């Protein structure tokens, strides 16, 4: 059996869990290609104009898998449906509907996991149901899920330790969802530019709150209920002392980020902040100009600090 996973959005939140779960069950996993102009164009075609860029790119990745599925014998395309993790912990409503939208737009076989506390569907239950649906035994699925979950945690921990070790004297905190940061089209140009300029990039989604139920985000926003944004705020709290500046990247028009980033930018006052919004209009000159001037500000700040000492 062969399963295709679109390499966008939610996949970046759990890269190991999905991959290992299928692999441990003996299912072959293929990913869609890295985001390229074809994927972007397909995504735009298959989406409503007002959808956020990340969602458009997701649709492009699904289209990419659908196109390849005949040639490469892909049996199913895996699109998780994620809604509630807890009574008050949810995600952007875009994730609620990905599966249903793809099902209606594309002519292919889709499978899903439904994580929804409001219907008493926990992550564990959802994955067990998925395994059984694919024809594996109950015990085998449980083992696969448990092992995959553990590997995901180990992966997160290793990533975190690596990031802490890499802290240098020139750090920039990047606040963006992992599917933006690591995407070839959206976040990569920014990351590459910073690295070329000898800045160490710190990702706010990799922080010590990933394992435990960290609630330090409440310092910035008491009523926040989006899970992935909570994680980003935890990162800001943890790293903001150690970095020279903060860069926010959000996609146009991201719902949660529009509100949360606005609030956070109002509250974090002691660091230079750059707020970038990416959309599907190509044109990197504007982006680089803004990044360059931001870096100049940071360098200047550093010099002034040095003189004072």
């Amino acid at each position: 059996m062969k399963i295709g996973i679109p390499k966008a959005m939610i996949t970046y939140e759990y890269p190991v869990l999905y991959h290992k779960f299928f692999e441990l069950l003996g299912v072959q996993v293929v990913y869609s290609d890295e985001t390229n102009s074809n994927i972007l164009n397909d995504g735009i075609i298959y989406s409503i104009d007002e959808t956020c860029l990340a969602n458009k790119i997701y649709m492009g990745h699904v289209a990419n898998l659908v196109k390849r599925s005949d040639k490469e014998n892909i049996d199913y395309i895996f699109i998780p449906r994620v809604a509630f993790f807890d009574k008050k912990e949810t995600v952007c409503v875009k994730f609620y509907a990905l599966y249903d939208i793809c099902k209606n737009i594309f002519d292919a076989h889709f499978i899903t996991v439904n994580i929804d506390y409001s219907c008493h569907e926990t992550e564990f239950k959802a994955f067990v149901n998925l395994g059984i649906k694919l024809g594996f035994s109950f015990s085998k699925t449980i083992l696969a899920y448990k092992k995959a979950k553990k590997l995901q945690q180990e992966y997160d921990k290793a990533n975190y330790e690596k990031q802490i070790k890499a802290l240098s004297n020139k750090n920039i905190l990047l606040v963006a969802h992992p599917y933006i940061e690591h995407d070839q089209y959206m976040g990569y140009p920014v990351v590459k530019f910073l690295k070329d300029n000898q800045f160490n990039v710190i990702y706010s989604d990799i922080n010590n709150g990933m394992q435990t139920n960290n609630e330090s985000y409440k310092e910035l926003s008491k009523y926040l209920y989006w899970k992935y944004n909570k994680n980003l705020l935890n990162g800001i709290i943890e790293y903001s002392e150690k970095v020279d500046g903060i860069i926010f990247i959000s996609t146009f028009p991201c719902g949660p980020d529009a509100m949360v980033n606005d609030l956070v930018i109002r509250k974090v006052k002691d660091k230079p902040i750059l707020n970038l919004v990416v959309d599907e209009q190509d044109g990197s000159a504007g982006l680089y100009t803004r990044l360059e001037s931001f870096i100049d500000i940071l360098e200047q700040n550093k010099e002034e600090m040095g003189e004072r000492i």
Partner: protein
Amino acid sequence: MLGNYYIPIYNFLNNIVDQEIVEVLMPNKMSNETIVEGSKFSPDFACIPFKYNMGNYLSELKKGANVLIQAGGGCRYGYYFEVQEQTLKDMGYDFTFISLLGENGLNIKELYHKFKLLNAKLSFSTFCYQGALAIAIIKIMDDFETYMRDKYNLQIDSKSFDTIHKKMLQDILQINTLAKLYQFKDEYIKKLKAVALRKITKDDIKIGIVGELFTSMEPFSSFYLEKELLNYNCIVKRYTTVTYLLLQKRFSRKKVMKKASEYIDYHFGADGAETIAHTLELIEEEYDGIIHIKPFGCSPEINAMPILQKISRQKNIPIMYLTFDEQTTATGVKTRIEAFYDMLKMKKEQEKESREEAYESY
């Protein structure tokens, strides 16, 4: 401020606060200024209700208000409170912000303590009684307005509903007990039923409105879409009312999912799945066209749109999608409504002709 709902809420607050020390301000009518001012101080991609709320708050703060109230709900609405509070405080206003939702959702006890700030003598029972009264008034207003909307273009004397409605909005302000309310209800039901109506004919064009709640319920934000349609002598139906949101929605979820199960398996958040179910229902009831409305960037409704497009293709029903933001103009909306109406009318006539032709050849 949302449609005419400010009346029961104004009433409710007046009944529970200590009127000697607290004055309840009647909100200004929505105007162009509301949205212009509101969007100046809102995040760029915040949805349009946020910006209207902001505009309302700003105009009240300028009038001297120092206690503001915000409700809350699904999707992004539950988060408005925090962003708005911070923004307004950053602008230098000093006020107390009461959110109807607490950290863990709606809690009547917690809410009671919040309102106690406005009236030290407020007892829990009065608070609950007045709350129930306000909801009962909203329910009656909704029933009244729904009946009126459904039958508006069926009345023989075109002014009769409007006069009763105007009178009702004045009278409803005087109500402060449930007993009075029921008397009021009976009286107005009688008045409504007394209005002479004609029957629906096959030639009437029926249009259903589905979509996001704020733009459905606040006529200003949709540039008086309903009024515009009623002027074209259409029969208009709309689902979303506050009664529906407060009392019926959570019990109808199963029914909604069953109705929409032909197209979707899971719920979409906010009103996404409801939009689809209502659309299917309108098609079953042989409506001629459907208008889907939403503010710019409304994710649940954007989720529903690809499915609506598919339904529109498969069931051969025209659906018009309207998006409202601070840059939408009344003329643009008017033109589109006019074009949509003309198209429905032509479609209807064509269908009639082809039916007659088929009949003749038979």
